[in-house]
């Protein structure tokens, strides 16, 4: 016990500042302001591996390490689609996973987001479209955010996920005038 506590004290808190949200990951015309205002700042995510090589999963796992600490941002991965606000889908959508992916989506209550993570999910993976793969998540589901990368780094994943929440944040209160501007009355 002493060793454990000593180690915790020694390592300390190493969580880093979260990255800027990446607006370029938003699939325009899908993301609706109303959905985002409902979700607020927190998000529960159900991950579905639709046939990935597992590299994207490793980086999704990394989001929970102390450096990224995604739970500290109010974002959690959940075991049931019924508890989820968003699906994070990886892989080129193998035909063998198509039905399971569809059922998971159908079981996710509205409002819901679909985040396609990785080159395969975005339709640019090396496995392509074949007898075994649909080739992209948007062949089966409407997507709201597309995160590129092979695999996307945890930072890239966070940027994409935070982009989905960006619009839900209220505009900041102005407490002092900005340089060159008249102070607000």
């Amino acid at each position, binding site marked *: 016990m002493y*060793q*454990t506590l000593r*180690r*915790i004290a020694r*390592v300390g808190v*190493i969580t880093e500042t979260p990255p800027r949200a990446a607006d370029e990951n938003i699939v325009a015309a899908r993301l609706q302001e109303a959905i985002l205002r409902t979700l607020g700042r927190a998000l529960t995510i159900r*991950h*579905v*591996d*639709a*046939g*990935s*090589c*597992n*590299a*994207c*999963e*490793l*980086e*999704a*796992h*990394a989001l*929970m*390490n*102390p*450096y990224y600490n995604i739970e500290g941002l109010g974002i959690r*991965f959940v*075991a049931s689609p019924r508890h989820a606000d968003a699906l994070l889908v990886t*892989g*080129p959508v*193998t*035909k*063998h*996973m*198509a*039905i*399971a*992916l569809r059922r*998971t989506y159908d079981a996710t209550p509205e409002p819901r987001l679909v985040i396609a993570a990785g080159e395969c999910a975005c339709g640019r993976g*090396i*496995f*392509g*479209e*074949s*007898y*075994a*793969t*649909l*080739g992209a998540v948007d062949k089966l589901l409407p997507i709201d955010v597309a995160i590129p990368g*092979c*695999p996307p*780094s945890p930072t890239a994943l966070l940027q994409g996920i935070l982009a989905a929440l960006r619009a839900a944040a209220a505009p900041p209160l102005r407490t002092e005038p900005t340089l060159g501007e008249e102070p607000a009355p």
Partner: protein
Amino acid sequence: MNVAPLGLAASVLAAEVPAQRAQVSSGQWLTACRLAWEQDGRLVALWGSDERDRRRGFCVRAVVEDAGGLTMLEHTLPDADARYPDISPIFPAASRMQRATYDLVGIAAEADDQRPWLWLASWPIDQFPLRHDFAASPQWEPGQEEYAFVRVEGEGVHEIPVGPVHAGIIEPGHFRFQVVGEKVLRLEERLGYTHKGIEKRFESLPLLEAGRLAGRVSGDSTVAYAWAYAQAAERIANVAIPVRAAWLRALCLERERLANHLGDLGALGNDGGFAFGLAQFSRLREDVLRTNFAALGHRLMMDVVVPGGVARDLALGQVHSLHDEADRIAREVVELRSIYDEHAGLQDRFRTAGRVSQELATKLGMLGLAGRASGIARDVRCDFPFAPYDALGVRMAVESAGDVAARVAVRFDEIEESTRLIGAITAALLDPPAAGECRVDLPDVPADRLALGYVEGWRGPVLIALESGPGGTVRRCHPQDPSWANWPAIEHAVIGNIVPDFPLINKSFNLSYSGHDL
């Protein structure tokens, strides 16, 4: 294996480990496997090929490994109605390999279990993807199959289906439990959900570029697969890589092993209720990945190992910082090991859970890390040390208990050894003999050559069997993940354990789904 007593003539097979090939008749297929078994051989791979364009019907091949190296048996079937002998009574791992061979090529073994294994009703059952006349355009809708799971009858027996979508961030697969209360009576696996048609995809890529696909068969083993593929490609092209490239490849392979073991130890702590372990080990894993990115350009080192060598070299300063980092991680892990070993609650979960005896492991032909935890002392880096492992002298990590605690102990020992190896490799990289180019170009690749690649990935030995076609194409590429040999062992390991221990036991093996399903 000396095949002369069987009346067989074996010829040399191109590979970085000692390897031979022999054409066998139906009867010889069986006797050769029996002989291999008697000589402590293990089945590494079994696959089929469409040879009708060469007027040679179909070919089924199997690779066995023993102390002498790899032996590839090749048996020709005149047509698809011909069957080959079932070797699963000798090598149990062959059962699923034979079923998968039927699903993809349409040639069957004379076996009792003819259930599909990689076919889950997403293409017509009478179509075979790896045949040359298979209509590759993706016009079939995903289907749903009825799979004949074995049921257990009895009072109070319940059936629990799990997956393919699992509770956490993990690959998909189906597990059918038969339980009484919480105790598992039987587990049956159903895999194939991540089948991407990789073997067919290989055939549409240029041979010198298909290493990128090999490196994505199983993303957490990208270095092992890319190296095995490169070995086979280099043997086909008859090219030797620079000395420096071998050292850099080993550096990448050991870093991959290190990163995976760190991640697993954290996850295993978490599965045992010790979240502290997850926080500490995931931090160390992240350190390794960030260093990978800084030094080699990719966190998981994808596309770093290429045919001909390594895609980029290290700067001098990076070699030193890699050396220092390995030292630091080794010291931190020593401390974490003593915390794990002395944590009563964690040890209570780890010890005796998911036990596979050495006797059972031998019968099942287990490979790699899970095999070593059950006393099977095999490791390609030690048994067939190609460069630079011949200069490094790897100490093998072996345990005998075969439970979760043993698979944890093997990981701790291998971390210690891999950090030591990284130190030795970085020292060697600074020495004159390892100076120079890190890559050579491969000239035109001759057609109709077959070569093997064999590398000890972090789970176990990865095999690549590569055949070149005309004009620099891939005629056939068969990757075989060590998970094929170990997945059946989990069905045995969980018997008698409670269902809540299944995630712990499964994670202690941490087998590949994508590497298995292809």
